[in-house]
């Protein structure tokens, strides 16, 4: 086994502990509705590759649910190991594709890439909007929801897009890094996938509840007339993309701030830094 592979292996338990520690403190201390329990998974995926990310995600949820003693234990986390696996796998794929590479906004090429990523997201948004939100009839055709659901769903859709635009603008103008836009787009895609994967788990295993803040959102959608499955999916589509965008942006900022020699020691390190100039 090579030394970079050993590093990935050492990173995994530390990332698991990070997931648990961040997931249980950040939410409590700052009282913000973000989970923050997949930053370690995303970092492992980006640094060590898709399989390392997948294993970290699965083990985090299994240990959290079944092995850790009560003050830390989260008994509902077990079945969501599937979602965590998908998140870790996707993070690894994005890392391989170079979505987490730091790209100074002064370079025209990185700006072009960021513009392309933003355009892809905009295209997706425009497509979804034109198919779904133009009239109540179209909305009913696509989602099977009634008219009352439309406003709530529209609100959630708008919130996610606004968050993407705000975070991308912040990354471009305050941090002057075009690579962050790619990381955000990766986070958005990961979040959407995670929502689609976890909705059936929440609906059928738990009867729609997980004991966290998202239950309020589910209750709101339920009272608007959505079925249990629709309500959990809507809740996931609102909170997962937001959470994963923040997680990916954080992972990106942290990786960009690390010394080059530390990052370069991991299997995927070469794709996280631009080649040394000169």
């Amino acid at each position, binding site marked *: 086994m090579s030394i970079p592979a050993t590093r990935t292996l050492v990173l995994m338990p530390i990332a698991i502990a990070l997931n648990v520690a961040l997931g249980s403190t950040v939410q409590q201390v700052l009282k913000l509705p973000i989970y923050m329990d997949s930053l370690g998974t995303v970092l492992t995926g980006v640094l060590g590759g898709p399989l390392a990310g997948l294993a970290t995600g699965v083990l985090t949820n299994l240990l959290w649910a079944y092995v850790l003693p009560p003050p830390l234990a989260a008994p509902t986390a077990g079945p969501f190991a599937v979602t965590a696996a998908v998140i870790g796998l996707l993070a690894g794929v994005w890392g391989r594709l170079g979505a987490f590479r730091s790209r100074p906004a002064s370079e025209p090429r990185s700006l072009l890439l960021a513009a392309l990523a933003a355009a892809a997201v905009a295209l997706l948004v425009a497509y979804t909007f034109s198919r779904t939100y133009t009239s109540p009839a179209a909305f009913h055709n696509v989602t099977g929801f009634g008219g009352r659901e439309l406003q709530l769903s529209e609100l959630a859709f708008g919130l996610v897009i606004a968050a993407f635009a705000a975070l991308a603008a912040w990354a471009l103008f305050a941090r002057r890094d075009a690579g962050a836009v790619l990381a955000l787009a990766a986070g958005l895609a990961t979040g959407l996938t995670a929502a689609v994967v976890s909705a059936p788990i929440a609906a059928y295993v738990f009867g729609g509840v997980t004991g966290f803040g998202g239950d309020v959102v589910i209750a709101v959608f339920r009272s608007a007339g959505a079925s249990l499955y629709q309500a959990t999916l809507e809740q996931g589509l609102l909170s997962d993309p937001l959470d994963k965008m923040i997680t990916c942006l954080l992972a990106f900022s*942290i990786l960009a701030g690390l010394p080059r020699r530390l990052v370069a020691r991991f299997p995927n390190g070469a794709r996280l830094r631009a080649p040394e100039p000169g």
Partner: protein
Amino acid sequence: MPAAVVVTVTALAALRAGRLRRLAVAVLALVPVAVSSLVVNALLPAGGGGAAAAGAALLRLLGATLPATLLFATTAAPDLLADLEARGLGRRAVFVLGAALAAVPRTQALALDVVDAQRARGLDTEGSWPRRARGVLPLVAPLVIGSLAEVEDRALALEVRAFGAPGRRTVLQRPPDSGWQRAARWALAGLLLAGLAARAAVALVAR
């Protein structure tokens, strides 16, 4: 119904092992889920599954959680891992699981230290939400960077001890294992297979 049996058997086993208190704590941890499940399923006007569905979901959750809780309340995780390694589980898997269990309390303590330190430097944990949101990076970054820096030391320590070297390892300490226990394990495995077969048969007949 099967979930109810599992919960009862687990409770009896816990009583026998004297770990009922630990099991009760695990049940208490599920109270928020139960309340929230009742609200979503029973109290809202748009007809959900009702209180019965909420109860069934909760029972399923208990059935899935309590046996594992009991296992780790009666078995020291390092012993379990050592035995699994002796039985052929790869040493990488054993290392990741064992190191993760050891790292969780350490990282948790580090996280609380970071919170205290940032509060001392004026981190706003009570203000409006944009002010609180500004606290995310100061809380997360020190913890993550500190942990990542640790990776290098540990990887080198492992390599120095020939962790990556090929070949089988000799396990020096094996937990006691009586013939009765071995027989009971095989019987339980057989019972599991029989149960699965019965389940499949019922499903086929119903179709």
